[in-house]
């Protein structure tokens, strides 16, 4: 664990809030839903209320024993 715990600095959070959309997947129609923080959770296409986070684009390697 590097670095000690610092109280969350509010300045960095505000950057996150601004225009930082994260994409989610609708549980019903599988459409990509861009969502801003504090936006209501709802699929823009079908109105479903259950959204899942998209899988990372980063490479993931598993140890296959």
């Amino acid at each position, binding site marked *: *664990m*590097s*670095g000690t*715990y*610092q109280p*969350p600095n509010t300045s*960095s*959070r505000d*950057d*996150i809030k601004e225009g*930082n959309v*994260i994409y*989610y997947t609708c*549980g019903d129609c599988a459409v990509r839903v861009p969502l801003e*923080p*504090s936006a*209501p*959770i709802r699929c823009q296409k079908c*109105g479903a*209320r*259950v*959204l*899942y*986070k*998209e*899988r*990372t684009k*980063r490479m*993931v390697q*598993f140890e296959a*024993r």
Partner: protein
Amino acid sequence: MGANDDGFEALLEPFYNGKKLTDPISTKEDKYQLLPAFLKVKGLVKQHIDSYNYFVEEDIKKIVQSNRMIRSDQDPNFWIEITDIRVGMPTRDDANELRDAGKHVTPQECRLRDLNYSAPVFIDIAYPRDRMRVVRKNLALCRMPVMLKSSKCYLSGANNRKMQEMQECPLDPGGYFIVGGTEKVILIQEQLSKNRVIVEKDDKGVTASVTSSTHERKSKTYVALRKDRIVLQHNILMEPIPIIIVLKAFGGMSDYDIMELVAGGDTVYQDDLLMSFDEATKAGVYTQQQALEYIGLRVKMGGARKGRTFGGPRRNPIDDGLDALTNLIIAHITIKDSDFYPKAIYIAMMVRRVLMASHNEKLVDDRDFVGNKRLELAGQLLSLLFEDLFKGFVATLKQQMEYFFKRPNRTAAYDPTGSIGVNGRGITQGLTRAIQSGNWTVKRFGMARAGVTHVLSRLSYIAALGMMTRISSQFEKTRKVSGPRALQPSQWGMLCTSDTPEGEACGLVKNLALMTHITTEAGTDAVEELIPNLISGVERIQTQTGTEMHKEGSYIIHVNGTPYALTRRPEAFAKAFKQKRRSGCVSAFVGIHINQHFSAIHIATDEGRICRPYIIVTNGKSTLKAEHLRLLQLGKVGFEDFLRNGVIEYLDVNEENDALIAISEDDITPAHTHMEIEPFTILGAVAGLIPFPHHNQSPRNTYQCAMGKQAIGAIAYNQFNRIDTLLYTSLYPQRPMVITKTIQLIHYDKLPAGQNATVVVMSYSGYDIEDALVLNKASLDRGFGACQVFRKYSVEMQKYRSGRKDRLGGPMIGEDGKPIAKHRCLDKDGLAIVGSKICQGETMILRETPVDQEAHVDGSRGSDEYRPAPVNYRIADPAIIDKVMISDTERNSQIIKVQTRQTRRPELGDKFSSRHGQKGVVGTIVEHEDMPFSDTGLVPDIIMNPHGFPSRMTVGKLFECLTGKAAVVSGHRELGFGDAFRSHPVEEMGRTLIENGFEWGGKDYFTSGITGEPHEAYLFNGPIFYQRLKHMVQDKMHSRSRGPRAVLTRQPTEGRSRDGGLRLGEMERDCLIAYGASQLLLERLMISSDATQVDICEQCGQLGYKGYCQTCKGHGKVTKMTMPYAAKLLVQELISMNVGVRMQIEDKFPDPEPALPMRPKKSVHA
């Protein structure tokens, strides 16, 4: 595939199991095909669904019907009439999102969003306004939790495709509720039957008791024989009342009439009763008036009658007595037109039963007899609760109405519509809370039961199914009586003989057998109408005197335990009645049986009786013919058709006693009345997994019933879509090589939990003692026993009174511009990255809580700061983030669920079991090349120690191995059947093995993998279905050298989850004391635990502080010593309770010099 595929289609297909449409049908062999037909319509979880359907469709209307009128006391011209009630289909109940409110909701959405799967309930009302009758329809009253797959559920009648669209598993049994996103089951409750007389004998004498249960109240009446006197007891009576006084109080009967009504012509009973007549004479009771007064004076004031007498004048004792007799004593017999005769007959019958039992002990009833029991299902329990809540609703509505009419100047006419929805919320909350907490409280019955509902166990498919068939008993577990726990002969075919837990609940928790059905109420009207007209010579009991009732050869016909009519031809009556039932004139679930001991015919139409279908046999021939089965195979008829056509009928436990039932067609004689559909149905669904259970020692089958529920396998087809708190799934589940018909019927072959391991029975390495298994490493590499563990971490974003909400923070960025280590797995939205590996201590959900949570009255803003409240991953072994779900709840707050996944291969110490109660842990994992191999190159997956067999006597396991092997080597999977009570496969399987070049007994030549030499013996080998059980080393492994301590006692914490220490308990302490290991004891109890330095004053014996004694006001005698912190705490706690504690200190090992003991305070003094 049919439009309504529920998985039974394959079994009913014409080509099922290698049989073609043209193949000959043998009723002997193929009658089991009735079983899938039965399970399509009844059985297993259908009882829950039937019961719930009855409640929401019929019972709820009856409840409202009996409480329909609300009249105002203030304004006699105003009333509200509730004309109808309906339960709709489940809808969303989102508070703020009007877009969604009222829309259909699927069970899966409820699970994911932590909602209630509930439907709106509508009522129609009528009330007067301006001398007109105003009718308002479809007013929303409350919300009713909906049972899955019931008639009010979208899943009922859905085909596979629709199920898939709703993300639901087509094999899911249903029958449970979803409340707050958790699946809740209302377990079947076992109870003694209501409104029936039970005669018991104890040290004091014989007692007949009856629990009267009506919609208004529940009470118990006793008629007891105490020292040759018969008395009547009831809760509302202050003391037992002589029975003759009670009978006299009913009026209209002379002493002679009473004598005849009880004893008939029997002089022995007459003599017995004579003693009781003296009692009445002694009390000076001769007339009805005197009797009523006698009873009235002994009715308890208050209690049940508190409310009624309030305000009114004190009534005279005669009215009190009359009221008690009419409404309270044996309340289930209703009085019509002040005619007490039916009640007198009932009491007389109880007295007669007491007298009979006092002369003949055999006539005492057996409480444990299944026929004397009733099973209470979800519908009944909900009905009780709903009625209570509805009455409360009506009461509040009335209160508000009265309040309105009391107002002197009313501006508008009263409109009740508004208050209905508001008051109905109480019903919604009551129902939801009861299901959620499992606490059933019905005020009117004084009923307060806890633990009625349980969370549906989703450990495995079998666990869930097993829970749906579970019956919990009302007996307390602590009682050390064996009677209720023992296997009752009347359980045959109704309750599973094997499936019961071990230990404290043994025999009290039972399970339904495969073909059991629990009746719903059939209604007495049709039956009562039928009785007098069925055969000639049936007379209503009211017109008869005691003389006629108890005449030799007279049989009293009881309807639900109440005398109703009289006949002298019982057999003919029963026969005619059964005929009517078979032809469908009476419900198929009405039972009739003749009791020869009491010369009585009992007709039962009540709910909760346990029954089971049988094939009808007439004149020594089964009525089931080949053409019936042909039609069934063609899908032209169903089970209900057989029921209607008199091929099959349901028998309840009492009626079974009048039947002679053949097990197979060969056993039928002219005396037989019925035939079993299939003998293996005496077992339940869980015991049905065991192949050849009839070859096992019986406790082994019981053990397997417990372990089958812990096996890791597939849970449901939608297992990866549902986010369970804890989910174990097998990577490569297999259908067992040897299956049973039960397995097919409950679809275990579609959702199996285990794998077919090639097992060699031999001793190997010594790491296989005490049931340990030797596993092949190469098998593990290929995925044997591999499983996945999913865990849910869920967080709801709370709203606070200050108007602030919880929020998600962004990951903290370190000096290098990257997130700090703890936030390594976080995305910029403060939630874990899907697919990333998460290690101990890392954050998954970076929640932040406002510091300012309370409401501000003065309008100030309060602090804007947020405090981090993250959800961290706490388990030592890393996992992968599998899924991150975000959604809203009904309260419109955000909910976040994170699912983690671990993939585990078996390791040393993991638990495995076969299906025969043979559990074991992995003792060693051996390289493939060191395993023995056969001449065909076969290398086992598992080596099992042969010592597991002799004492366990699990011959079924040997048979499973043999049968499986024959099926494998021949390539015919239809060989792999191990049904209970069916076959004995050794010869046929041996032949198959020989045909395929193997030894007939399943033993083969093996070469040692270690030495390369042949083994000296031939080794028994073959496929055996092995289950991986949920107990895994990874979840239990724990060690601690130093670690956290409890705050209060400063002792090490307890339990693995708190990194706790291992307790050296009292018994261990005793051992060390006895051995004299004082230094070890000192180390364990003090140094490694809560040793602490305290200052003690030698003078006063009290605790000091920093070398100073508060009491003695000096440093003089204060000394230091080491003692357990817990002991110090005890002393201080005692002081706080005003109990003085003094510690006298002496030196066990004084200094050789007589000088003063060496202490720090000495130096201070010096």
